[in-house]
């Protein structure tokens, strides 16, 4: 019997997998954390399962290993697993290999980077000041470090709320810079991101359906009046500093009218009848707990107190906002949707499960890696994926396909098509842009989206389709006239069947189904030219709907 290249690889990988397995057993895992994660995951599943007893459609089954592997890779480190990863994982006989995989990926430095890019987008997509992009690199680096070190979410949130400093150097200034330091806009973003509450609806009028009153919004804004941003052109690159103004008249009015925001000592609620009047002086009050500070309090004490009150375990919204968001990213649907519009008047699809999980997250000391470990251990996470549910179906009966974010898709294309060495050097910005842009940034401009937007409403664009269909960069990757990439794959696998399996492993991180094998082999026969046919198959795979989703 002839041993094909593919079978030989399987044997090789079997050995490799056993090695990996042995190494994992030997490594002392954080047993308590893992136990607590599994126990909490089981409890969440029990709570959700209770809802299906009367449901018309039962939950779908768990995803197979290859689907789980690709999902976990994309969710945690934002990259595709390699062919070897797929085979090794499929062959790993250990029963807890899914947990082990999650632990391995959480320890990968790419984990911090992936989620840093996510939160960078959460903050910067809502920027009302274009130059907040100055913080792009700094905020990504800052968050990447925090996530990899597993800094508690309370500490990270506190840093964003209390930041000062050069926005190009200190990434925690990004949230304030994104709203150019304006107290009302910063307040709205702090409430949206850290509490999941859209209190800014009450900025101009008492919200018709929410309990928050206009005054409460402006009382919250009263924690931020002394913050300002100051331009600085002294260095090689123009930048801004988030500064504090605790003294009257510290900043003189600039002569030109370019609307630079200056800090004020206290916040005033505008008079709607008379917008040019000073308005009503507001005392800082945190609307959730009702705690107050006197006017005249120094900035450091104001923002420090607010951060402390927001991140206190007695405030349930802080943990819920984070859990709801991460759950939505991982399972495909939030308990509340949109994910950043929660609050007592909003409908939660499974309140017991969310309350429990948020409570446990708070008890863990807002341990973010613990939360990933826990959610990814639930059946709700591990189920097969199905398109977004209809409204009459129970939530969480399946995982939900998520469109890859720009960074995830860029890395996936580079890996699937062996383009690492062919990434062009920093392309010069065109169209009057003074900034040189690297290919990833250019790609993100076309493919990125605001991660807070309801995922069901995020479609693609014609430009995106055109870029994958026709761009010279992608075409290089599809060409079989290369020494590496598809050229090498076809040379190493003279049998069409083998080549097809290898191509699917590389691009789709799974083997082809019988039907796909048939479709492709028919296609190859029909085209008559092996090279041309495989180029077409590769083109079809990277352009497929499955490729641009995490399933």
């Amino acid at each position, binding site marked *: 019997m002839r041993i094909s290249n593919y079978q030989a690889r399987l044997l090789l990988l079997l050995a490799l997998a056993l090695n990996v397995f042995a190494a994992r057993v030997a490594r002392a895992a954080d047993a308590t954390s893992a136990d607590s994660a599994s126990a909490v995951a089981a409890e969440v599943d029990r709570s959700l399962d209770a809802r299906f007893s009367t449901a018309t459609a039962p939950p*779908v089954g768990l995803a197979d290993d290859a689907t789980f592997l690709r999902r976990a890779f994309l969710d945690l480190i934002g990259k595709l697993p390699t062919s070897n990863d797929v085979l090794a994982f499929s062959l790993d006989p250990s029963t807890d290999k899914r947990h082990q995989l999650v632990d391995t990926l959480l320890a990968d430095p790419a984990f911090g980077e992936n989620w840093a890019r996510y939160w960078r987008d959460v903050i910067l997509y*809502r920027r*009302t*000041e274009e130059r907040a992009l100055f913080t792009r690199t700094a905020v990504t680096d800052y968050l990447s470090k925090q996530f990899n070190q597993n800094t508690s979410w309370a500490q990270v949130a506190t840093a964003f709320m209390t930041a000062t400093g050069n926005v190009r150097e200190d990434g925690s200034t990004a949230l304030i810079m994104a*709203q150019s330091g304006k107290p009302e*806009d910063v307040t*709205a*973003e702090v409430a*949206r991101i850290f509490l999941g509450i*859209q209190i*800014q609806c009450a900025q101009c009028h008492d919200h018709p359906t929410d309990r928050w009153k206009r005054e409460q919004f402006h009382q919250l804004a009263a924690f931020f009046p002394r913050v300002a941003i100051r331009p600085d052109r002294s260095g090689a690159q123009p930048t801004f500093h988030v500064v504090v103004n605790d003294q009257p008249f510290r900043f003189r009015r600039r002569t*030109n*009218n*370019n*609307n630079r925001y200056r800090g004020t000592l206290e916040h005033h609620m505008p008079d709607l009848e008379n917008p040019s009047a000073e308005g009503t002086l507001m005392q800082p009050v945190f609307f959730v707990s009702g705690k107050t500070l006197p006017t005249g309090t120094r900035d450091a004490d104001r923002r420090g107190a607010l951060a402390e009150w927001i991140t206190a375990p007695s405030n349930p919204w802080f943990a819920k906002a984070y859990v709801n968001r991460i759950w939505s990213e991982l399972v495909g649907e939030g308990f509340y*949707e*949109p994910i950043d*519009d929660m609050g007592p008047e909003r409908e939660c699809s499974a309140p017991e499960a969310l309350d429990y999980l948020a409570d446990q997250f708070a008890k863990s000391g807002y341990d973010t890696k613990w939360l990933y470990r826990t959610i990814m251990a639930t059946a709700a996470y591990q189920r*097969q*994926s*199905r*398109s*977004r549910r209809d*409204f009459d179906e129970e939530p969480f009966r*399946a995982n939900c*396909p998520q*469109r890859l974010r720009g960074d995830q898709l860029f890395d996936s294309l580079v890996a699937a098509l062996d383009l690492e060495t062919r990434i062009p050097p920093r392309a010069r910005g*065109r*169209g*009057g*842009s003074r900034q040189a842009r690297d290919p990833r940034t250019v790609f993100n401009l076309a493919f990125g989206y605001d991660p807070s937007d*309801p995922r069901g409403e*995020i*479609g*693609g*664009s*014609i*430009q995106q*389709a*055109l*870029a994958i*269909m*026709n*761009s010279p960069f992608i*075409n290089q990757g599809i060409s079989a006239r290369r020494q590496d990439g598809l050229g090498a794959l076809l040379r190493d696998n003279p049998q069409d069947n083998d080549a097809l399996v290898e191509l699917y492993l590389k691009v789709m991180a799974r083997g082809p189904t019988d039907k*796909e094998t048939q*479709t492709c082999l028919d296609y190859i026969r029909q*085209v008559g030219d092996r090279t*041309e046919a495989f180029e*077409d*198959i590769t*083109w*079809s795979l990277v*352009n*497929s*709907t*499955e490729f*641009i*989703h995490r*399933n």
Partner: protein
Amino acid sequence: MTVTVQHQSHVAVNKHRVIRRRDFLRSVAATGAAAGAVRWSDMLALHAAELRKQEKACILLWQAGAPSQFETFDPKPDHDNGGGTRAISTAVPGIQVAHKLPKTAEVMDKICLIRSMNSREGAHARASYLMHTGYLPTASVKYPTLGSTAASHLADPDFDLPSFVRVGGTRGGADAGLLGVEFNPFVLNDATRPPDNTAIATSSGRYRRRLGLLGRLDEEYAARGARQEVVNQGKLYDKAAKMVLSPRMDAFDIQRETDATRATYGDSPFAAGCLLARRLVEAGVTFVEVTSNGWDTHFDNDERTTELCASIDQPYAALLRDLEGRGMLANTLVVLMGEFGRTPKINARNGRDHYPRAFSAALAGGGVRGGQVIGGTSPDGANIEDRPVAVPDMLRTICHSLGIDADHENMSSIGRPIKVVDGGEVVTEAFA
């Protein structure tokens, strides 16, 4: 609940479109029957013509950086604030413009000048956003830009080119926002060459073959449970493929114009943008935005506006003449404006700074009566003395010309109804 409301409003919009499309098909069928046989190329031409008859188009010429009204449409030659800019007579007796716009002066009979634009926003990005959307930027609601609104109300969803094309980057100009990505602008950086990634690397036969294989493989993914994702992606790929394989793609190629026509527009990037805009509108595109950069003249205002005006004067006049000559002006609104005006006083660096309190804009075509001036400023240019036109008034006027219901409400993602234009009144004199 939110999504349900939104879903319903989409259905309503779609229903509206379906009805209009049916009307259109009926009228084409009638024309075709009368003429006997209709060839495919004729059908294309007919299609575009029908679209123009029923659905208006708009070309927005955006002066990014905020143009000085003193050096364009509101010269003050008798005042110190005038900065030495002379006023010249135009084709319309009694109306004068800055001497830097001699060709525009010749087509004044087609232009309705508004000299009393005003707002409170003096920061570029926020003011650009305001002028494009009617709203200031907020983190919670993403307001749609004018072109996206026009595309969502007027364009035929089956049209094979993008309905909203932007030529040159418009910083702060916003995009489709809450209307959804299908109404986002198709952005071109350079009007002189075809858009990126529209040249296919294979024969069109092989391209179609690949699309066929893609469809078969996607069908298997749909069968595994991702039906909705595949349907949506399919729509997008149909549209993208239809576009690159469309015979109408020639509309993007201004080299196909005669030398004579190209000469009338001139050969600056803005001129190419104007010519491209005409070609696209002619092919059935609903909204084209062309940006002219560099109007932020904090330094050497006089010198720089001389160059800037020279770069727009000829193409602007040529565009209006060309549209008129082709019988397209009546249904194509051409708007020339920037985000605010510039200070009456010349600063120490011979420049003018930001001034949102009084500035000018120009409307032409689309039912607007040319040869008139609406509103006016004080002799020193510092204040509006007659008929102020606020930003919502302007946007309402544009909607009126295009037949868009400015009170139509879109649903934001948090379930808040957002009007196309909030407040304001149509400047009815513009159409009288």
